[in-house]
């Protein structure tokens, strides 16, 4: 019942929209054209990736449609270009534009899901450590200290490698996507845990929490209903910034050959494949995936940085 009262009635949606338009966040957004361009670019790629099956000229996953005769055709505006393949083809005769769209879909999917998973783990652990304190807190925080001494990419590699070693290559066929998601999530949850723990420590000692404890509200309810909504601010900021990191990490893992199989390309796999042909003059195979990857990571990062500054009351 309390929940229903927390949220304002739906009929106030229009008021909400007005509030957003008048908000500081929206205002600072419109004041910076770089952020607007970055956000537009990121949204464009995400939308194109999401709509890949509808807008891609061909389906790169459909092996039957591939023709090795079409391999390594340059972009259409170059000599020997084929009007059928706007950005040219790769070594297997796949249309590069289609591969890019599908690849971006996979990359963004891995990045989003792993970030969500990392947030779930990190926020839960951080809330528990911060609220209960004592020995639970000490153990968890020492654990995060240890993990923080490793670079995230190394942790992801370790988790990834360990899973593959334990399950065997045959076993994991078809679930590479999820292994990637889990290994990236396990590399990134620590940040959320630490930030949420620190905020929880502060919130726990505020009087609104005391008021709830006083009337005997159960601990988990206090954590979920009272503290959680008040510690999510920094999480969204870190989430946006590390989304860019997750995209890069996915690409790195795939580039190192522990990501998705070449038959199921992501941006990282495409760069890896293209890398082999760079020296032989077929630059487009690596160039376009590389540009999309860099542009996506950069624009998401710019949006994240802006969000951090815009929400920081000290910088207003």
């Amino acid at each position, binding site marked *: 019942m309390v929940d229903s009262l927390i949220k304002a009635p739906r009929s106030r949606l229009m008021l909400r929209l007005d509030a957003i338009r008048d908000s500081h966040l929206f205002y600072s957004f419109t004041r910076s054209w770089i952020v607007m361009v970055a956000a537009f670019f990121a949204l464009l790629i995400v939308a194109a990736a999401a709509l890949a099956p509808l807008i891609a000229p061909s389906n790169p996953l459909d092996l039957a449609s591939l023709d090795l005769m079409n391999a390594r055709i340059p972009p259409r505006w170059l000599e020997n270009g084929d009007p059928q393949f706007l950005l040219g083809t790769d070594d297997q005769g796949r249309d590069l534009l289609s591969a890019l769209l599908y690849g971006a879909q996979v990359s963004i999917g891995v990045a989003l899901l792993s970030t969500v998973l990392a947030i779930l783990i990190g926020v839960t652990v951080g809330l528990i450590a911060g609220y209960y304190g004592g020995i639970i807190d000490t153990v968890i925080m020492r654990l995060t200290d240890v993990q923080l001494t490793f670079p995230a990419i190394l942790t992801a590699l370790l988790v990834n490698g360990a899973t593959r070693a334990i399950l065997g290559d045959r076993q994991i066929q078809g679930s590479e996507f999820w292994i990637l998601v889990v290994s990236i999530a396990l590399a990134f949850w620590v940040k959320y845990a630490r930030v949420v723990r620190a905020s929880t420590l502060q919130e726990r000692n505020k*009087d609104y929490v*005391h008021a709830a404890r006083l*009337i*005997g509200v159960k601990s988990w309810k206090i954590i979920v209903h009272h503290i959680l909504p008040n510690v999510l601010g920094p999480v969204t900021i870190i989430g946006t910034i590390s989304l860019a990191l997750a995209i890069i990490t996915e690409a790195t893992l795939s580039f190192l050959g522990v990501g998705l199989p070449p038959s199921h390309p992501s941006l990282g796999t495409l760069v890896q494949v293209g890398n082999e042909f760079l020296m032989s003059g077929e630059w487009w195979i690596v160039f376009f995936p590389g540009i999309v990857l860099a542009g996506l990571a950069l624009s998401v990062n710019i949006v994240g940085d802006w969000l951090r500054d815009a929400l920081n009351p000290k910088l207003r």
Partner: protein
Amino acid sequence: MKSQSDDITPTLVTVSKLRKVYDLSGPWLEKVLAGKGKQTVTAVDNVSFDIKRGETFALVGESGSGKTTVARMVVGLLERTAGEVRIDGISVGSTASAGERARLRRSIQMIFQDPYASLNPRWTVGAIIAEPIVTFGLIKGKAAVAERVGELLTLVGLSPADAVKYPHQFSGGQRQRIAIARALSSNPEFIVCDEPTSALDVSVQAQILNLMADLQERLGLTYLFISHNLAVVRHVADQIGVLYLGRLVEIAGSRDIFERPRHPYTKMLIAAVPDLEDPGKAPEGIVGEIPNPVSPPTGCHFHPRCPLAMDRCKIEVPAFRDGVACHLA
């Protein structure tokens, strides 16, 4: 408010020999490695008082006096090192039945100092006030709860339409009204008020103090009022206890303590309050500061600042007898 020292009025709250010791030494491992012994600080020492039903008992003291620690132990937010709190004869924190414990919890509420920290910024005012009602299951049905919330808002001088707003839309004084409405929502008998007006401007303070007095009269509430401001205390209290460095130095009726203060510290505190009716007069005869509670003075804690201190005061802790703890009283 009722007139003071009415002997027939039954006691509602009994606080006896309350004590709080904090362990300042670090974690066990640090202690072993650094070879440091246990270091403790006694924040509250042997504090006892009674509050009669429908009256206001005020605890006054400066920083480090332990007044907030007492308040938090009385409501059960802080564990007691020793001592007992009884409300209506039932010992708080005892192994009473679950039903009895819930009843006890419902009958004690608290109003906090900072109305900016005591209301969850992400909740609507309606949800904040409804939380005790819902938690204790006092009223069933969404409409009935909303109606009760509206009543409470009206009671504290706000409008029922304010229920859908968020705390940041209100001024400090209005927020404190919301906090009072929340405290009243479980129909408590006893409310602990921890410096409820010290974060407010003086004209708003007057509004809140008057509101609290009205509510006391209407609902027969009993208050434990924590404050550092003697003038405020004079306006609200029936009985006053003066704390110094964790110990009670004097308890007396409100009029008695201002007209005939007995402990030298009480006298000093009263002398330190600026008097608007005598402008231009600077306070005199006030010396020293509150010592660090980690290493309090021996004997009577007040002796280094006391104009009347004798050798005995440096050695012997004066017993609290007949309303005062002083070798000379």
